């Protein structure tokens, strides 16, 4: 493949003679046999004229095994580089994600592996389109107009560092009469708000938000933000990634694991709920979907798709159940009710009160179904589990904290870890040592009461499906147990009130006993070895800071511990409501509530915002609201973006630091997503950075920027003697490789890898750019690292993670009742959150049910991902745009008929949040639930090359040079602007400052409850 090369120069009018000589391959393909109408002596092959060469390894190409970042799925890549240019991307056959879970033997010599085919998806193959996009920026930029006006000019690197470090009247030349605080001004332990010391130091006014972040760079950024600068606000984007299903698992596993899904290599039956398995997911289509499809073709797995949109996987599904958006919980609760009423749950397993008894039954994890919960409102431990010490304060030391179960047989309360079987569906009044009565119920009984609150008929009504479908699915699911599990993903629970929906979905797996077993609902096996410690200590350094205080998102912080609460309580009595919601019980990574906090300057204001590889305006449902936040210098006094291009969000930045792509940087150590597998994929560059360089030859990128900034401010952890080694020595950190290569060495050595053989070492040293820095490591450590690099990581097989059918790396228990959640209060209402299952329809923060509130908007808006794109940044994938030049508004053909609309019509979608609406083209389908419209992400860009910008010296700033810049302006590609972005329609919460809506337990953004009106566009 020679993509990107000048076609005119391919000069391939060469005639391809098909000789009869023995060595001519084409001769062997059959020259001029009778069935050819040609004499067959020669023909001019289109490929010759088109200048197409066979891809694959040529004698003069370099090959690097690395990890993809076409999306976050973490497949392996084999990057093929010719003449310093990335030419092609193939799969890594050592990697289980590229081999249907059955990779080649890890000890296979690399030279042999290099010739083995291995698949990757289209997003991976398109890497060269992305890496060499003419719209990439190579030089640092400074704003040269109003925020968001789209005017930038290049700035020298040293000046960039100086201005961001020390601030000043940085935009006085634009008429902005304000002094911008630099990072140095925030390097202070003074409280960020003297009236509320619990919020922490001024350091927390520095907020660093990360979009597509992965391990490796995460460690580097955390080192800077948390441990060097000392801010608590390094904020990920878990919420918009898919916090919904993760919150369900967070309750289910007591915060220990948030990703569990059906094992596609071992399941017999998968309930696919809000998971786009043939197009998206993590692991991606190359892994998860592929495993399901292949095993489906062999009659080894069946599945049901529950989704408002009939996606590609319906081709093979037993059934497609077009559920009403936002009602996954109702569907799951209906199934649970059926399973309970029909005794289709695994009774013996649920009665096993501890891990040992569950293992004896062949299960890795036990369920706390039999554990007793105090239901006596008068008891000091109301809503908590009954402990042995509640019954007998003198319980022998160590077992006082033990949960209590009612022993089967005699019914006596005993410590859970001493019982064989507990009573499952019980409630009782026990008497403690002082003779006081304590009302208790088993976790199962509480769960059951939650599930029985509505009839099956009612659940079917909420979910908008026939009752028989719920029954059928429940029967199917339980009949395949324990090789039956749910695959819930970003569709399930990704909306307001989604926490309890996703929890109900997770509980299905516990009832049938498939948690953490082969073919069941499994978490990830984790990484192969740690990067932090070993040969080098990458965690600790002199003057390392520990961030403190409260996140601006209020994640993991209790409102009841704040000055605000105490003040309000003193004046109003209850202390509620808080001004905005607090999220003590969340997985975290709340970028939406961070931006809302910044907008509302609550609980404190932001002084400096850094955004990394992040496009919140485009990617957040309702992110359009943050345009005004980012445009306001009072709310965001300094905004620095680190990115590869100018997107809809950093359009508002004061400075944009150019970054490398994953072909040139993004060193990383990547562990698997759930389920099952155990590995560490290693990403290293395959080509030299395309960005500009500092005077001492380091590329402009994230790491160089943070290192130089730390050095300018005088922060610890960067510079000389900051990385201790195991022999008492100290090493410097002046460039990215000094951090990452040492992390790689730790992983390789901790995993006990052998040294690379001489030919393999040679292969790495001639093919991998990172080998230039091998002298950073002791020779033996480098050889072990080279062994790992040659294979693109360290990979265990699927079978390695099992002992029989038990998962070696799984959780010990999952819960039907979560104590910590049960004692957490809603910060707006002051009421306790339910500790077990509860059906909750999507509602706004005032509790108004959205379906009733927004009746004037008759269609539910459903959003989704396409197989050819990742969220926002693959608009540069030109082949994907060829396949689908614009996304459409999918509507059921009968709905369209009722509205008098037809396929291809231009329509406008209007919502309560965006009454002006968004325009798109209609596609009438039958694979969309009636009453819904489905719109994918990825399209409808206004930036990343979709619009013109005024950029001084743009021919030097943009990779495309004068091809994309003339007369002081960026020349846009109108192809990038086609289609529409559904996030621009999402509802805002009118009672919370018109910021995007979020779930009040976890802070889940609202991807599924917006309703729209569809009108013909004039």
């Amino acid at each position, binding site marked *: 493949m020679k993509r990107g090369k000048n076609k005119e120069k391919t000069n391939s009018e060469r005639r391809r003679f098909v000789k009869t000589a023995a060595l001519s391959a084409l001769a062997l*393909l*059959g020259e001029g046999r009778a069935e050819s109408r040609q004499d067959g002596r020669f023909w001019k092959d289109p490929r010759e004229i088109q200048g197409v060469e066979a891809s694959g390894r040529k004698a003069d190409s370099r090959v690097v095994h690395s990890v993809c970042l076409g999306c976050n799925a973490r497949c392996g890549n084999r990057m093929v580089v010719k003449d310093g240019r990335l030419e092609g991307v193939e799969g890594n056959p050592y990697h289980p994600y590229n081999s249907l879970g059955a990779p*080649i033997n890890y000890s296979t010599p690399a030279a042999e592996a290099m010739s083995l085919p291995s698949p990757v998806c289209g997003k991976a193959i398109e890497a060269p389109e992305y890496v060499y996009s003419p719209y990439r920026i190579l030089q640092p930029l400074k704003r040269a107009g109003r925020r968001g006006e789209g005017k930038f000019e290049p700035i020298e690197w040293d000046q960039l560092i100086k201005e961001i470090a020390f601030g000043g009247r940085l935009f006085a030349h634009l008429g902005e009469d304000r002094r911008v605080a630099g990072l140095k001004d925030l390097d202070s332990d003074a409280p960020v708000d003297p009236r509320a010391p619990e919020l922490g130091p001024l350091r927390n006014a520095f907020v660093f938000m990360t979009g597509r972040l992965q391990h490796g760079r995460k460690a580097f950024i955390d080192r800077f933000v948390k441990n060097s600068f000392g801010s608590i606000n390094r904020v990920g984007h878990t919420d918009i990634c898919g916090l919904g299903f993760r919150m369900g698992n967070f309750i289910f596993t007591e915060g220990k694991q948030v990703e569990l899904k059906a094992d596609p290599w071992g399941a017999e039956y998968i309930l696919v709920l809000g998971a786009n398995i043939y197009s998206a997911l993590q692991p991606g289509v190359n892994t998860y979907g592929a495993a399901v499809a*292949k095993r489906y*073709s062999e009659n080894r797995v069946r599945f049901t798709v529950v989704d408002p949109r009939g996606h590609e996987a319906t081709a093979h599904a037993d059934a497609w159940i077009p559920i009403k958006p936002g009602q996954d919980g109702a569907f799951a609760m209906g199934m649970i009710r059926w399973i309970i009423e029909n005794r289709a749950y695994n009774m013996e397993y649920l009665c096993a009160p501890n891990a040992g008894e569950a293992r004896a039954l062949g299960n890795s994890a036990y369920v706390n179904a039999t554990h007793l919960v105090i239901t006596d409102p008068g008891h000091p431990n109301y809503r908590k589990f009954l402990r042995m010490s509640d019954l007998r304060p003198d319980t022998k030391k160590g077992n006082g904290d033990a949960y209590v179960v009612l022993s089967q047989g005699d019914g006596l309360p005993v410590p859970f870890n001493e019982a064989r079987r507990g009573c499952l569906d019980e409630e009782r009044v026990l008497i403690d040592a002082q003779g006081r009565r304590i009302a208790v119920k088993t976790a199962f009984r509480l769960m059951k009461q939650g599930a029985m609150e509505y009839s099956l008929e009612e659940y079917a009504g909420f979910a908008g499906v026939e009752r028989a479908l719920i029954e059928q699915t429940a029967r199917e699911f339980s009949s395949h147990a324990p090789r039956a599990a749910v695959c819930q993903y970003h569709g399930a629970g990704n909306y307001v009130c989604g926490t309890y929906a996703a929890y109900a979905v997770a509980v299905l797996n516990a009832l049938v006993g498939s948690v953490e077993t082969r073919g069941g609902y499994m978490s990830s096996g984790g990484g192969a070895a740690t990067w932090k410690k070993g040969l080098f200590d990458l965690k600790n350094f002199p003057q390392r800071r520990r961030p403190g205080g409260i996140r601006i998102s209020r994640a993991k912080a209790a409102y009841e511990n704040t000055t605000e609460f105490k003040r309000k309580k003193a004046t109003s009595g209850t202390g509620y409501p808080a001004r905005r919601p607090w999220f003590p019980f969340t997985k975290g990574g709340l970028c939406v509530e961070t931006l809302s906090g910044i907008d509302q300057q609550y609980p404190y204001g932001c002084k400096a915002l850094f955004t990394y590889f992040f496009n919140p305006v485009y990617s957040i449902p309702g992110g359009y609201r943050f345009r005004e936040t980012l445009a306001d210098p009072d709310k965001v006094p300094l905004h620095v973006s680190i990115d590869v291009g100018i997107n809809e969000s950093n359009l508002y930045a004061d400075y944009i630091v150019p970054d490398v792509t994953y072909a040139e940087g993004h060193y990383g150590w990547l562990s698997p997503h759930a389920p099952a597998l155990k590995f560490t994929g290693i990403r290293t560059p395959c080509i030299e950075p395309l960005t500009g360089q500092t005077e001492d030859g380091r590329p402009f990128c994230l790491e160089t920027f943070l290192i130089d900034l730390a050095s300018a401010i005088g922060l610890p952890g960067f510079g000389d003697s900051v990385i201790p080694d195991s022999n008492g020595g100290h090493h410097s950190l002046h460039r990215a490789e000094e951090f990452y290569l040492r992390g790689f060495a730790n992983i390789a050595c901790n995993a006990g890898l052998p040294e690379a053989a001489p030919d393999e070492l040679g292969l790495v040293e001639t093919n991998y750019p990172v080998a230039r820095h091998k002298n950073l490591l002791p020779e033996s450590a480098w050889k072990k690292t080279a062994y790992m690099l040659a294979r693109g990581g360290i990979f265990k097989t699927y079978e390695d993670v099992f002992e029989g059918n038990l998962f070696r790396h799984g959780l010990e228990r999952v819960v039907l009742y979560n104590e910590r959640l049960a004692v957490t209060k809603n910060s707006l209402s002051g009421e306790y959150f339910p500790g077990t299952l509860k059906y909750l329809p999507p509602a706004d923060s005032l509790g108004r049910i959205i379906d009733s509130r927004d009746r004037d908007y008759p269609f539910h808006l459903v959003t989704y991902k396409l197989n050819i794109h990742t969220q926002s940044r693959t608009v540069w994938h030109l082949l994907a745009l060829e396949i689908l030049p614009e996304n459409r508004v999918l509507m059921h053909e009968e709905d369209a008929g009722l509205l008098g609309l037809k396929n291809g019509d231009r329509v406008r979608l209007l919502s309560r949040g965006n009454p002006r609406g968004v325009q798109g083209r209609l596609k009438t389908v039958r694979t969309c639930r009636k009453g819904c419209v489905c719109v994918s992400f990825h399209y409808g860009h206004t930036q990343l090359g979709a619009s013109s910008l005024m950029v001084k010296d743009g021919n030097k700033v943009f990779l495309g040079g004068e091809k994309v810049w003339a007369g002081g302006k960026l020349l846009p590609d109108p192809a990038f602007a086609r289609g529409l972005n559904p996030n621009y329609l999402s509802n805002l919460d009118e009672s919370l400052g018109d910021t995007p809506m979020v779930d009040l337990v976890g802070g889940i953004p609202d991807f599924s409850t917006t309703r729209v009106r569809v009108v013909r566009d004039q």
Partner: protein
Amino acid sequence: MSADMSSRRDLLKGAGIFFLSMARPGSARAGMPEFSEKVPQWAMIIDLNRCMGCQSCVIACKAENETVRGGFLTRIVSKEVGTCPSVRLISSPVLCHHCKDPKCLFACPNGAIFKLSCGMVVTDWERCTGDGNCVKACPHGARIQDSRFGNRADACDFCLHRLEKGLLPACVEACPSRARIFGDLTNPQGEFLSYIEDMGFLDRDRRVNMESRVLYVPLTAKMRC
């Protein structure tokens, strides 16, 4: 090493050996078709029960063959079948079938299209005038015209240029679920062999149906609701 992976590698090895050392005799396997030609008879089996419609093959083909913008040598055709709620979105890859009696070949007034003895239909771009007759004649919609080169006609050639080097067609290598299974009908191996044997691609005389070199395994699924 997985059986699948090694059988794929064996195919490549086999192909490589073949190219270097002339033809091997037809398969000696009992009951398998015998070919008089000493050339490989390439064919692609597409198992629709494996196809996810993920477009990996389409993008791999575009990247490999650098076809004209908007032109595809292979595509995924999506179709909705059934009525709500028993509707499926089915995906089916489309490409040149290398038909036994290619309609495109007979439609070309210039004799630019011919069939190689290995079964593949190719186009001579010296003779192709870009009239587009073959594109209209193709029953599979698998031919395109290349506006960069005088609208000359183009179609899938199983990545002939890769086969010469012992590589699989780009779409086959890129397919994550192995829905495209490629092989030589004269010497079927591994999974390709099992499909030929199991899927009824043989006629009563145990000869391969040679009407088309793209053989589809139909969807077996039936919705229960």
